């Protein structure tokens, strides 16, 4: 989830270096890489089976196209063996062209939709953003007759808190937030690790923190025993104070950079999303991931149709297609997040299904996790203000007159110079 700008960036650097190397050496790594990709392309020649051919082919030949707006790296592109290129398969099956574009944050998606000028048919926002959009009447209610595959969705994820009547969204992925840490540096046993480790002075300057007020406040709210959806000004202020205390031990406030910094051992501990964390664990065996016992945030990303969609039925067909077991499996295999799709879950290998990080079990989810819902405008504003204040806080309190006084001095100086020049010019005449 969240933004994936930096990983493609990293890949670009690597690719640039690789081309540089192979260009200079003339042999070696570059060639080996090519051979590998062509091999995977051959092995993924897999056939797709769908439940109802007639349903999918009814728009064929009409030359339709839909605009899909999704997170970066959030759909299977068929590069891994045994998976499908989802968008290409959809076009092949239905004849509907998919214009696929990416965003990096929920807020970017929101700003884009609010700004107008473009329209989308399918978007995949997260929980709290969905409830915000429902409240602001930005989503189309779905016609579930056109999405028969909704029956695959596990009961736990039907009628979620962010969409209580389940009229607007079809869950796509979910996951929990936990702590990723370096086992060689942190000697606390795994079962004892809790959120307070992020405040531990022994690890000062080795701690990374979310650079996003909602996620950061949630951690401090869980520690203080508040709801992560609290709108109480007193509780929000208390949570912000807690975050202010933490500032002294935090190395940096980051989002995607967590990925690279943890993999490069630049920091010892950081909060992160379970799905992405599993990917880092594969890269660096010193790292481990734990979901703190005092509870955490459960996030769900779900498919919706925004108001202004021009091909609503085709969009519903796309959503239904994404819920085909083969497709859902391909996607989840690529993204590494957890799936709410029972068909895809069945197809996963046993190791993944029993992985407590990805699938901690329904009892655990019910008892220890909460889903974000949208906060009121006042609470959002307060949170944003507290967050900016916390981040820009310095030891001395700033005097809010500095800037106006500075401007006045500038103005005075300017007038002075102008007058001086005027007098000089007058002198020059004579």
């Amino acid at each position, binding site marked *: 989830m969240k933004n994936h700008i930096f990983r493609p960036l990293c890949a670009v650097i690597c690719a640039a270096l690789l081309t540089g190397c192979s260009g200079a050496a003339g042999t070696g790594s570059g060639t080996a890489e090519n051979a590998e990709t062509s091999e995977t392309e051959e092995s993924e020649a897999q056939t797709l089976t769908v439940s109802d051919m007639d349903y999918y082919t009814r728009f064929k030949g009409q030359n339709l196209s839909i605009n899909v707006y999704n997170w970066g790296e959030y759909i299977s592109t068929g590069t891994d063996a045994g998976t499908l290129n989802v968008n290409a398969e959809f076009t092949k099956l239905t004849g509907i062209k998919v214009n696929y574009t990416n965003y990096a944050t929920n807020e970017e998606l929101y700003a884009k939709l609010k700004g107008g000028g473009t329209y989308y048919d399918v978007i995949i926002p997260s929980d709290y953003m969905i409830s915000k959009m429902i409240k602001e009447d930005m989503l189309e209610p779905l016609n579930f007759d056109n999405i028969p595959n909704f029956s695959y969705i596990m009961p736990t994820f039907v009628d979620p808190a962010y969409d209580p009547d389940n009229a607007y969204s079809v869950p796509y992925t979910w996951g929990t937030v936990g702590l990723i840490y370096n086992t060689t540096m942190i000697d606390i046993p795994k079962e004892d690790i809790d959120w307070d480790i992020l405040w531990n002075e022994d690890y000062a300057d080795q701690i990374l923190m979310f650079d996003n007020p909602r996620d950061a406040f949630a951690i401090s709210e869980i520690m203080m025993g508040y709801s992560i959806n609290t709108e109480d000004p007193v509780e929000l202020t208390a949570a912000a104070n807690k975050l202010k205390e933490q500032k002294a031990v935090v190395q940096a406030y980051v989002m995607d950079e967590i990925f690279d910094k943890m993999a490069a051992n630049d920091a010892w501990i950081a909060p992160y999303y379970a799905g992405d964390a599993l990917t880092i664990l594969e890269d660096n065996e010193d790292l481990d991931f734990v979901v703190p016992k005092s509870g955490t945030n459960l996030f769900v990303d779900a498919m919706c149709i925004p108001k202004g969609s021009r091909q609503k039925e085709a969009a519903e067909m796309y959503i239904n297609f994404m819920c085909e077991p083969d497709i859902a499996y391909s996607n989840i295999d690529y993204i590494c997040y957890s799936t709410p799709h029972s068909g895809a879950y069945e197809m996963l290998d046993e190791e993944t299904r029993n992985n407590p990080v990805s699938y901690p079990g329904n009892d655990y989810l019910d008892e220890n996790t909460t889903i974000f819902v949208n906060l009121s405008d006042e609470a959002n*504003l307060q949170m944003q203000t507290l967050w900016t204040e916390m981040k820009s806080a*310095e030891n001395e309190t700033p005097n809010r007159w500095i800037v106006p006084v500075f401007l006045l001095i*500038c103005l005075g100086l300017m007038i002075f110079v102008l007058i001086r020049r005027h007098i000089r010019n007058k002198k020059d005449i004579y």
Partner: protein
Amino acid sequence: MKKLKAFAAPYLVWMAVFIVVPLLMVAYFAFTDEEGHFTLDYIANVGQYTNIFVRSIWLAIIATVICLVLAYPVSFILSRMKKHHQGTMLMIVMLPMWMNFLLRTYAWMTLLGNNGIINNLLGMIGIGPLKLINTEGAVVLGMVYNYLPFMILPLYSVMVKIDKSLIEAASDLGCNPVSTLFRVVVPLSVPGIMSGVTMVFVPAISTFIISRMLGGGSNLLIGDLIEMQFLGNAYNPHLGAGISLVLMVIILLIMTIMNQFNPDDQVLI
């Protein structure tokens, strides 16, 4: 002359559509609330971010001064070189700009990291690890590194026009090298200094990606603050527009004052 003016028409249209209209929209957003009523609240609220403004101006000034100090001798030496060497050297100055800005800043993240290359090298000779990244120093470094060519190029193009005989005449008439520099070279290169300072200071004061990548998120600059209003949790384009407007006024004032020191009455902005 009249015919020549027609060639400026495309730019005029461009300017009207993509510069003037957006500026008016920024002003409109800054002075209205969500219902479209006139309000000064957002402009007044900018005051609470004073320390961010002060920090941004301060860091931008430091970066500009460092750029000037670094670039001045380089440009002078460059302008006194043989013509065919000048081309090669200029290309070397420009070389980093061929690579994407983000990638260059990203590279500094790996260089300055706690386990980065610099700290590893320092570790070999028994120093450190030093806290290099996530500091104000790292932000200034990022600004200097990224904007240095913008200082060198205008300085160089002005200095290359300074006649060698002027410098020779100065020393013939008894100027020592130091007073030659300050009484001949510096006054003649003032226009270059002015445009160089403008070209470094303005982007430095409004940058946001450098401070985010190298400042660790705890060295907020105005650019970050504005970005947060549009792409942050509290979607508040009115406050964002208000901050942008105040920033624009500040830059405009600073630039006007600087222009006053220009001896030839040339307007550079």
